[in-house]
């Protein structure tokens, strides 16, 4: 059983893994070896992990400050009432949204272009 029947939405419910686990589809093998596929996977995986790392650093940086140095979070910004912690908290929320935006922008352009090129090549 190859990948092409795996997710068939219609028809009978068919088991996915076991039966086909030791017969690897030569078609998929060929795709895996194309430079387009390797380029796509390399770039996207790298990009995804970099952004994941950034999110982890920013969020656990924020949590770390709360955990280890509460006084920094209480510093007043610009002589007003709002504290640094407040700005950082809102920053974490905006940063998370911004990161997803950056990923989607990159995926919509660069990764989709690579993916389209791969799909065209495979169909030939």
């Amino acid at each position, binding site marked *: 059983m190859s990948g092409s029947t795996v*997710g068939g939405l219609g028809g009978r419910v068919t*088991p996915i893994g076991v039966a086909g686990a030791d017969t*690897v589809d030569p078609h998929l093998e060929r795709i895996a070896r194309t430079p387009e596929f390797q380029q796509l996977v390399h770039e996207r995986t790298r990009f*995804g992990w970099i952004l994941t790392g950034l999110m982890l650093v920013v969020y656990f940086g924020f949590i770390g400050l709360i955990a280890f140095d*509460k006084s920094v*979070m209480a510093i007043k910004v610009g002589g007003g009432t709002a504290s640094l912690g407040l700005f950082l908290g809102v920053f974490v*929320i905006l940063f*998370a949204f911004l990161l*997803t935006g950056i990923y989607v922008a990159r995926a919509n352009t660069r990764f989709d272009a690579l993916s389209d090129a791969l799909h065209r090549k495979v169909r030939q």
Partner: protein
Amino acid sequence: MRGTPLLLGLTLAAIAATAAYAAGPDLGAVQQAATNWPAIGMFLFFVLMTLGITYKAAKGTKSAADFYAAGGGISAGTNALAIAGDYMSAASFLGISGLVYTSGFDGLIYSTGFLVGWPIVLFLIAERLRNLGKFTFADVASFRLDQTSIRIISATGTLVVVAFYLIAQMVGAGKLIQLLFGLPYLYAVVIVGVLMIVYVAFGGMKATTWVQVIKACLLLGGATFMAGAVLYSYGFNPEILFKKAVDVHPKGDAIMAPGGLVSNPVEAISLGVGLMFGTAGLPHILMRFFTVSDAQAARKSVFYATGLIGYFYILTFIIGFGGIALLMSDPSYFKLGAAGTFDKLKDMIGGTNMVAVNLANAVGGPYFLGFISAVAFATILAVVAGLTLAGASAVSHDLYAQVIARGRTTETAEVRLSKIAAVFIGIVAIVLGYIFENQNVAFMVGLAFSVAASCNFPVLAMSILWRGTTTWGALTGGLVGLVAAVTMVVLSKAVWVTTLGHAAALFPYDNPALFSMPLAFATIWLVSLMDRSRRAQRERAAFEAQFVRSETGIGASGAHAH
């Protein structure tokens, strides 16, 4: 713990009976409130509208793909609203605004934690999930691994998460409706249970999706109005709002800095880990990615949903501060003591979870209060419907079709079983909601997140991302994570001391994820490495095909295939 509000209620009962709460309905802590007709009217309107949608959805729901995944025909924007609707629970709306009201800044710790899981879902999970999966995340986790074992552990993880989440929601719903609508607790729990059965059993994913979309729009609209009204009162200058809040709050300037919520570093980080990675393992959330046509739509829906959810948390923060500034100096929102005095933090009518509701009355009058009450009820309904559908799918699609019938079943039989499972889950939820009425269930949402982060997420992530993962590894790792998370919570203060009445907690932290999640990952890694079986070799070899499909979608069925 539970004795205090009861005592308070008893001593205040006499006063409450004579004092006229002209400003709003009496939201006494243990008493049932006067029947709130505007709220009930608006809620009935919501129910009628969603039942109409369910009727339409039921007519269009024929195949399994329709039932589990709305035929894969949901657009990215609609799915984003539905994700937001699934995620913005009454707990986050009422709970976080209440937390901001009592502790100020500390509310932000939860808001940020609930949000930052979304980028992780997007970067590592969403597109691959859409490319590999069909209806449940177990489809993805068991793609190249043993169907029986992996579906059992995934379905168990799903059902445990759903059970804890559901109990918390049912009990919350019962209490809330008691307070808001003046209906008896049992009525409220039965109404919620019956409606969620109707949505899920008849309308499947289509009805569930639209219930969530409508609820998300109502909640975002209502919260926007409230936050806008608060900011309007202070000339759209947050600085003036904060200043006023600091002036009237008993803790003064301390509300602008981290307080006592997270008492030590390990606790803070463990809470963060649980919130962040729990999001990436919630079965009812993961299921939403199968309702869109392709990976592009999955990706866009996370982006929009992150924006909507982030916006919502900023609103709850403003609402919490608005509660401080506008309610704290107004005695009509408090239960007054003998000398007309009140504790700003403890005596709010209905408890501090009612800050957002009382603020609705303050900024919009009794009809807006009715609207927000109806929205809060709708919010619970939408969340429990999503949970029920996820639980029913785990029973029918994973346990029945693949484990018990071993794939030898028909689509019709599977969908029928799913509907029966939805009815069963609904009844169980009503019964549990009733049993747990007077129990402390506050820890249960946290436990659901911890199990999701320690069982579902590691199994899913390792099976997609690491070539070396084998069935034995995923099975034992998932099981270890599940057992560890539940055990640590049971031995923690919230259950061991508060609920079971022991003297001291055996596990020092409230949040286990920092320990249980790495334990699950390490177990999957170690057991997979040691697995020398023939099956393990086949599974490693099969990674290549799975990898190509997860990265490109090649081989993934079109969403409109039926």
